[in-house]
């Protein structure tokens, strides 16, 4: 089986060709790639079942008037694009969309990403003890279950919470953070919780930067900033792209943290799209409308993913 080292393009053949036994007998490479694909089948089936299935179901649901109760619950009707048209004219939608983008940019793209990179760079040069202390502290927030992390943040920011006690200790005026600055509170909470992920990705990436190259740059007279911008960052570009994509998608779907801390309030001032979808689908029982919002979230995630892939071109190591 292993005696055919030449690639004849069989891998790119449509799978139908491989299914015919006669054809398979004439093209051993097709058979081989088929056999190589077999171990992937369970994973593909699982993904199709548990990822693609709900996505298709959600897209389908968004074209119906399905609801939690009433006649539309027993026999949902196909309503075409009605949910999307209603969404466009819903005055709450631009608000939720805007807050989602703000949450995404400030807490993930700027907060988690830069803080993670900064911590990774600083600890790389730090003594071992400092490194392990910082890593433990940061990772603690990451390993907490989301609901526990959310309660911790609620306790920290709430009106008689830790932060206000600390402010009172220095005679500063207490602020009702969750009420007055709900977005700032949830953004900080998400940075606190998610930075460890970026830090670990960048630590691993920095370990892969060959020391000879950095040394060569030093010999050429490049300072710290120049080394970072011209040597390190281009070399870890793949990791940056992967990291950005992952944290964007994670942050886009953050629900528990916001729901526990502010429930999207007061008066929808921290209602991001997941909270908005929940409130419509389960609070008001409009399941079809809620899935339309979920579908829009899916599109936003896709747009960001494509953006990262295009701009940062991961996998292109030339």
């Amino acid at each position, binding site marked *: 089986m292993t005696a055919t080292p030449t690639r004849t393009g069989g891998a790119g053949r449509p799978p139908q060709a491989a299914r015919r036994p006669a054809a398979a007998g004439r093209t051993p490479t097709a058979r081989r790639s088929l056999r190589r694909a077999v171990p992937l089948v369970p994973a593909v089936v699982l993904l199709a079942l548990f990822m693609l299935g709900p996505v298709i179901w959600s897209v389908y649901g968004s074209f119906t008037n399905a609801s939690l109760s009433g*006649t539309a619950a*027993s026999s949902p009707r196909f309503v075409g694009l009605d949910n999307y048209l*209603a969404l466009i004219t819903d005055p709450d939608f631009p608000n939720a969309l805007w807050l989602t983008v703000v949450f995404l940019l400030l807490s993930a793209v700027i907060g988690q990403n830069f803080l993670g990179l900064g911590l990774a760079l600083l600890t790389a040069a730090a003594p071992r003890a400092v490194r392990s202390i910082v890593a433990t502290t940061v990772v603690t927030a990451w390993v907490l279950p989301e609901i526990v992390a959310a309660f911790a943040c609620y306790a920290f920011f709430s009106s008689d919470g830790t932060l206000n006690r600390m402010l009172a200790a220095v005679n500063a005026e207490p602020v009702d953070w969750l009420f007055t600055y709900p977005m700032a509170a949830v953004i900080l909470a998400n940075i606190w919780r998610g930075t460890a992920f970026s830090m670990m990705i960048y630590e691993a990436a920095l370990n892969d930067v060959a020391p000879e190259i950095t040394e060569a740059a030093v010999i050429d007279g490049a300072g710290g900033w120049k080394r970072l911008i011209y040597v390190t960052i281009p070399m870890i570009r793949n990791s940056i792209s992967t990291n950005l994509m992952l944290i964007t998608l994670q942050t886009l779907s953050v629900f528990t943290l916001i729901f526990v801390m502010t429930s999207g309030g*007061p008066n929808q001032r921290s209602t991001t799209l997941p909270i908005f979808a929940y409130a419509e689908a389960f609070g008001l029982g*409009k399941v079809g409308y809620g899935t339309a919002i979920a579908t829009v979230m899916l599109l936003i995630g896709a747009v960001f993913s494509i953006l990262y892939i295009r701009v940062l071109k991961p996998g292109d190591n030339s």
Partner: protein
Amino acid sequence: MRKSVLWAAPAIPFLVLAASGCAPAGNDTEGGDKSITVAYQTTATYTQVDKLMKKAKEDFEEANPGSTVELEPIQAEENDYATKLALMQRSPDTAPDVFYEDSFRVRPDAEAGYLLALDEYLAEWEDWDSSFIDSAKQAGLGADGKTYAVPMGTDTRALWYNTEVFEEAGLDVPWEPKTWDDILSAAGKIKAAIPDAVPFNIYSGTGMGEAASMQGFEMLLYGTEDTLYDTEEGKWVVGSQGFRDSLQFISDVYVGGLGPEVATALDSNYYQQLNGEGYPTNKVGASIDGSWIAGTWLETGPAPWPEWSEVMAVAPMPTQNGQEPGATSMSGGWTLAVGANTKNPDMAFDFISTALNKDNTLSFNKDASQVPVRSDVAEDPSFTESSPVSKFFSDLVEVTHYRPTTSDYPEISGSIQQAMEAVMTGEQSVEEAADAYDDAVRNLVGDDNVIEK
């Protein structure tokens, strides 16, 4: 040979998963056995239903050896309970056989096909004809005229106030407010005299769910010249002055500093803080609340406060300007219903008839300070003596109102809460919030189903 086994190995977890996923979810749904599940709400301050269900389970299992009642208490506030229940009802595998259901959800849930029509069972239940008050039976009616739920009790709402706080503020006790302005001026005096107390509470905002719509907004609106729904035309009212005046009252209380801190009031756990801690420590002046809150302070309740009957007093909620009939109230109430897909409908109904027999209803109505819907309970001396306020709340039935019984109501109620929240936080003016509500109603029910007032 070895190779082929190896490449199949990654499939094993999947096969195991598939096998376990396809297995029947539980044995209790198989025919022949005798088991039902009962779902109901319980919270830190609302344990009375839990007590009733435990007692009913005991009674039922004793009377029917071999049968099992599985209790599924759902620990959640009202909104989350309703959502959880609706999600359980969506699939026959998870739908409980018997559940605790708010009367305003009976009609939409019956339309959704979640509820079993009980008429043939009720026909054979003697108590239904002999003891249940006719007007109360409407709580269980579906749009098709069939009965889908058995009422457990009803309730009325009024003003509660702390006489010690009132006396400290130099206000007359007993308090007899005749108009909304009387309430606001009393609150103003409390604020001036006791700065760290909450002068007056009215539930408001989305966090409080249906309590904000009913104990809050509708207690105001139904004391004006307007209503939410025009029953004769069968249309929802938009653009009414009463709606704007009611929002203005919310604004006067919250923006005017006569209510609790807005952030506190928006917390869905505020109910507990208000009644469990606020009143007993003389930190609350007055509030609009239901007959049942006395249940919080009873010996059997979650926050016993033996002195409550001397400290706390009640007054009817006045109409806006004292117009006839001078007072107003809202009534709701909860029911027990049977799931449409139950495997044991007979047993499910038998359980309800046990849970809501005279003795169990009596002790539930006493524990939860409910207004009885069974005449034998209402006349029972142990009920009338159980609480100094039971007669007061029963008498309010004369001026009470019921929520619109259309299936759109839950969503409209959500829009009312949003309008209240927008006004109480000062984010929108009364006019803006009322217009936003009108738009929301038009969107929900269509232009043909609204009437401009």
